[in-house]
């Protein structure tokens, strides 16, 4: 009689890892389909609808292109911090802070056209940087866990933006009363609705990957991230690297906020982030520490979000859509673990 059993391997082969992910996503879609069928929807028709409207039309693809920009950047922000062993849960807040600072420049600085955009970009990155400054210093000098500090500052940023957009900077006599006036400087589009923020985000991810793999600084960051004690042994300025990397992480999330303002929304308003900061954490988890992986993980996440929007137009609720998103992530995580196993057969 042959007997089957599971065997755990210390590391998964790349083929197994990829296969497990594809399987996980397929399985999640099947489960979602079954549930949809239960609530009386036709999953196949819905699926077809999703695929044709997001991938089959240029409108759908443009929407994807717009969604992917902030996701790449917030995902990159979290991934960069991970390299040195920090969890930036505050990309959301840094996104808001970046949007806030960029809007301030866009609305009030006496700059014209291109210069205004440059000013907004610098301000956006700087806003994100300022927003992570205290968590970074607290971690570096007092060993305060950044998970909590970055998270708490999210709420401050959200409220700040809510306040200025409904009060101090509100468009007087505007229709909605809950947003600033339109900001004149806009990032030009290069393909339909998609603006130059997309190539900027992709280039930034590639640049980050290059920086980590091909510079002395990147080597030191990876080393400290992997074993802080080794940093001390080698005399590397671990504290300075930690602060730099965390500030960089904040700046990237801040830039995401600026691109959202200058590229697609053009005014500051509450809820501007669409949870991109939190979704960035999921993107980073899917990318498993790879800056280039972030691009693909963000694309997948954008597709899921976009599908959600389409499904909502078909009468599904937001929570259903969120549940499906969660299911995919959950199964992917399980798939990643299972790819360490293989089935063996022993003869007895």
């Amino acid at each position, binding site marked *: 009689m042959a007997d089957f059993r599971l065997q755990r391997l210390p590391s998964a082969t790349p083929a197994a890892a990829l296969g497990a992910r594809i399987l996980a996503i397929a399985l999640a879609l099947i489960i979602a389909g079954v549930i949809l069928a239960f609530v009386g929807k036709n999953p196949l028709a819905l699926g077809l609808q999703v695929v044709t409207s997001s991938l089959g039309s240029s409108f759908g693809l443009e929407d994807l292109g717009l969604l992917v920009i902030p996701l790449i950047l917030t995902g990159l922000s979290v991934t960069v911090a991970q390299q040195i062993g920090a969890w930036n849960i505050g990309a959301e807040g840094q996104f808001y802070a970046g949007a806030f600072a960029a809007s301030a420049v866009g609305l009030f600085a006496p700059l014209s056209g291109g210069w205004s955009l440059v000013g907004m970009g610098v301000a956006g990155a700087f806003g994100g940087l300022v927003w992570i400054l205290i968590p970074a210093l607290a971690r570096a000098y007092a060993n305060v866990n950044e998970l909590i500090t970055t998270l708490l500052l999210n709420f401050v940023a959200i409220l700040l933006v809510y306040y200025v957009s409904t009060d101090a900077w509100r468009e007087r006599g505007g229709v909605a009363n809950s947003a600033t006036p339109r900001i004149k400087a806009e990032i030009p589009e290069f393909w339909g609705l998609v603006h130059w923020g997309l190539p900027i985000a992709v280039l930034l991810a590639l640049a980050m990957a290059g920086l980590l793999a091909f510079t002395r600084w990147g080597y030191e960051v990876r080393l400290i991230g992997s*074993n802080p004690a080794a940093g001390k042994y080698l005399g590397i300025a671990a504290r300075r690297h930690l602060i730099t990397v965390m500030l960089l992480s904040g700046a990237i999330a801040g830039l995401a906020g600026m691109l959202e303002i200058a590229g697609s929304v053009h005014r500051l308003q509450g809820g501007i982030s669409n949870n991109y900061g939190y979704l960035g954490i999921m993107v980073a988890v899917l990318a498993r520490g790879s800056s280039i992986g972030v691009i693909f993980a963000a694309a997948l996440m954008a597709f899921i979000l976009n599908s959600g929007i389409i499904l909502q137009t078909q009468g599904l609720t937001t929570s259903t859509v969120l549940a499906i998103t969660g299911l995919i992530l959950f199964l992917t995580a399980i798939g990643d673990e299972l790819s360490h196993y293989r089935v063996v057969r022993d003869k007895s």
Partner: protein
Amino acid sequence: MTEPSPRYVVPTGAAPLVQLKGIAKYFPGVIANQDVDLEVMPGEIHALLGENGAGKSTLMNILTGIYQPDAGEIIIDGYACQFASPVQAIAAGIGMVHQHFKLVNAFTVAENIHLGWSETPRRASAPVLEERTAALAQKFNLQVKPSARITELSTGEQQRVEILRVLARKARVLILDEPTAVLTPAEARELFKALRNFVSTGNAVIFISHKLDEVLEISDRVTILRGGRKAGTEFAADCTPAKLARLMVGRDIVLADMRARPPGAAAVSSSPVLRLRDVSVLNDNGHTALHGISLDVRAGEILGIAGVAGNGQRELSQVLTGTRQAATGVIEIDGHAIAHANAADFVRRGIGHIPEDRLQSGLAPGLSITANAVMREYGKPPVTVGGLFRPGAAKTLARSIASAAEVVIPDFAMPIRNLSGGNQQRLVARREMRIASKILVAAYPSRGLDVGAINIMLRYIVDLRNAGAGIVLISEELEELLNLSDRIAVLYEGRIMGVLDNDRVDIDEIGLMMGGRLRGEKGAAHG
């Protein structure tokens, strides 16, 4: 040593407690185990010997369910078993204390003992856990302090916690992977007593070690692995260290006398290259670990540091290499006082450091072998040119360090923790010797190495000295110190008890000094 134990006789009629049959385990490019049989009887202490990378840890990881064998059977008490995890192995009575401890540093002893244990009470307060831990410590006769945090414990104490953790789970087979490598001789004796006690009730111990004397002292039988295969099982009473060494490497090992200075060797410099003057150092807890030490290291000499571990050796090696600041006093390199140097400056001046906790602080276990091998030279050409890190050049350098260290590496991109413990140490040692043009501070360099590798390592240290470097050799092995050192300083409770010239050394005197007696009248070379 202690009196020889009576000759071990395999009990007739008793079933082996553990039996491994035809075990094989393959990693990409490596045969870690092949056709390995092992039999351990109740009441037996069974030693497992072999060169670095011979497959000892892997075999024990298979027995405890961390790895699954690619072939072969595990038979416990006569029943074939399969362990999918260490939890299942411990449920069957098999527990292991690893080469690198797996305790949670921020937790207390009691919390570590109760972590992941089915018998931990559902709702337990700290006092309850501590009381239970104290009772366990009493029962197994292992002294631990239940409320202490792991970081506060010495290595020997941490090991006791690990052992207690295993015994508390009712283990009948205790596996110890190089348990004495990090223990003082006194701690090792304590451990041996506890082990004898443990097997006297029909339990068994499997014991991995590179110290052949100790293996012969404590074990009943010895199984030797060579290149992943079994080279034989012997009664300890029938063996000598030389015979064991021959079985391990397949040829005789000649221990070279290394004191002789070959013609052409660099002379000892008249002025010191590295000098400590009245240096006091605080340890991590803020206590004074070194009290106003003065020490000279000259080029072309080996300065041995004798003493029982834990008397300031760690802090001494750190302050000599810039990884710890001196609280007071002056450190001079080539006659220049170093004000606020860090480790990188010391490296730039040609000072290498084989740290005592090389696997914790000298390596990044999760990074590739290449990244670890280039740790000291990544910042300069050929690895970094104009700020650009060149992975190709890094790999070339890693390859040359690995071949100098005589470690065969199937894949330089794999995490270094996949290498055997001894092979990791060899890489660190070679990496440091490459940069130690002026000074090498080597703390317990032979720990964790097999006999052959120790011989090679010491040879390299001597060559380095002959080439004109000054060596600080910190060791507990008096024999090693006497064999190599030109001068020996004795460290006791953070103070130098005296410095002796090797040609006028009196072993008894060193022994007394290690116990805290100051150097006698005979005129110390330097204090």
